């Protein structure tokens, strides 16, 4: 059963900038999908339409059986609660401690007051520490986030989204600012989360090789339109050139 369905979704920024044109696809529960495409092709817009950080111009998005395009504020909050998001620049509150940032994942579940003053239940705190332990961050729990390395910050980002008990995790270029070793750690965690916790994962990536290794399905988009949708095995070289609108020898992956 599809957990997420895009039906002819279009998005126009301002009056002229077309970000998405007639995008349709559906994602089944438990899938690991990777979206690849050149910068500015609409990858981030797709993710942000799902949790309504961006409003679509046309078409409908169905998440978990509900059309979220016509959702009111309360319903949007419900959707966001159930979708975690991981960012390229981690987007943590740098001056707060790791544990506080992880607990932010519960804000959607809490009353305005107790969320605003940061009062969490013992159960929530325990859960936060368990997640931190899983991600190997127990020692960092009380450190301020600006003391951490990039890879550690991204793991805090993952922990925060896991705190939401999400059904879907959206990753917006999670490894674009990380070194190869931290990148592997992050991708391995995402893969484990997807397999063991059965959380659906949609991951924007710039690295085609990484996408092909980790994802079970790849969606390639060029200037707001889907040009490839299928398993990584069928993503041939010529199709990659199509996605990036490039020729033989024009991609960094061609350098040997």
């Amino acid at each position, binding site marked *: 059963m599809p957990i997420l369905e895009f039906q002819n979704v279009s998005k126009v920024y301002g009056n002229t900038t077309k970000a998405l044109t007639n995008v349709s696809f559906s994602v089944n529960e438990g899938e690991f999908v990777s979206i690849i495409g050149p910068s500015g092709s609409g990858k981030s817009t797709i993710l942000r339409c799902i949790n309504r950080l961006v409003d679509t111009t046309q078409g409908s998005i169905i998440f978990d059986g509900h059309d979220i395009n016509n959702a009111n504020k309360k319903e949007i909050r419900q959707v966001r609660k159930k979708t975690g998001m991981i960012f390229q620049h981690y987007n943590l509150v740098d001056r707060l401690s790791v544990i506080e940032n992880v607990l*932010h994942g519960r*804000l959607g579940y809490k009353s305005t007051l107790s969320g605003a003053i940061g009062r969490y239940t013992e159960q929530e705190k325990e859960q936060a520490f368990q997640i931190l332990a899983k991600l190997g961050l127990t020692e960092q729990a009380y450190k301020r986030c600006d003391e951490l390395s990039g890879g550690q910050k991204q793991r805090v980002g993952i922990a925060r989204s896991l705190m*939401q008990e999400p059904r879907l995790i959206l990753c917006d270029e999670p490894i674009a600012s990380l070194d190869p070793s931290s990148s592997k750690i992050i991708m391995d965690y995402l893969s484990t989360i997807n397999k063991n916790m059965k959380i659906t994962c949609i991951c924007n990536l710039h690295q085609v090789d990484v996408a092909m290794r980790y994802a079970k399905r790849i969606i390639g988009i060029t200037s707001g339109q889907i040009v490839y949708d299928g398993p990584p095995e069928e993503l041939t070289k010529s199709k990659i050139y199509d996605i990036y609108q490039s020729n033989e020898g024009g991609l960094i992956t061609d350098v040997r």
Partner: protein
Amino acid sequence: MLDKQMDNLIEKTPKKTNQISVFSKRKRTFAITFFGIFALFAVSAIVANYNILSGFESIPKAFAWMAGNFIPDKKALSRLPNILAKLFETALLAVAVTASAAICAFFFSLLGTKTTKAPPLVSRAARIAASFFRNVPNVVWAILLLFSFGQNILTGFFALFFATFGMLVRMFIETIDEVSSSCVEALHATGANSIQIILQGIVPSSLPEIVSWVLYMIEYNIRDSTLIGILTATGIGYLFDLYYKRMDYGSASLVVICIVILVITIELLSNKIRKVIM
């Protein structure tokens, strides 16, 4: 293969003539600006009847006169307790003004910043109001308020309050936009509501910079409250004005020295505080 690629690259770079014209254009702009400023100075000097040479010649004379008259004497020192009491009063006023203006400014800046996504009209209105308060100098505020409050400490308070409020709203909006936009996006994505985002995201990430601006405005207001005090006949400014008009230059200079010492102390202190909180 590689040669061919290099050729391609070279072809893509702009022609040399283009580059030269860019440089000569920059030189021309520079020359025009320089002569423009010079011409502006010359014209205004002629219009204002200002002679640059006699202007500079009088500087040493001015210093000699100051050195002769502005040395605090015994009489001045006997007035020190009175001066210090007034100075303390002025400093407290500056702190009170800045603190209350900061609280109001923070709420206003939440409306003005892009991160909270307040309705565009409200946000625009908040920015315009702040800009109005900021762009009327506090001296003008003082003169305007003199009509309604008279020569009173309240006049000084509100004059400084309005100007400080306007300044702080702008500083706060810039700070919040700069440091919290990324974490605000993430908190939105978790399903947090606006009040939770403000208290859990915006406040902790921008607080140190906000405190830093408030400290700066305290320094600034201690300096300015002297000037306002001359107009409103309150605080240390009044005392300076009084001694000066009585031609008691020794006491007047002691007032100035006390103000300078206080301002420098506050500046050093706030630098220390900044270092700790940053």
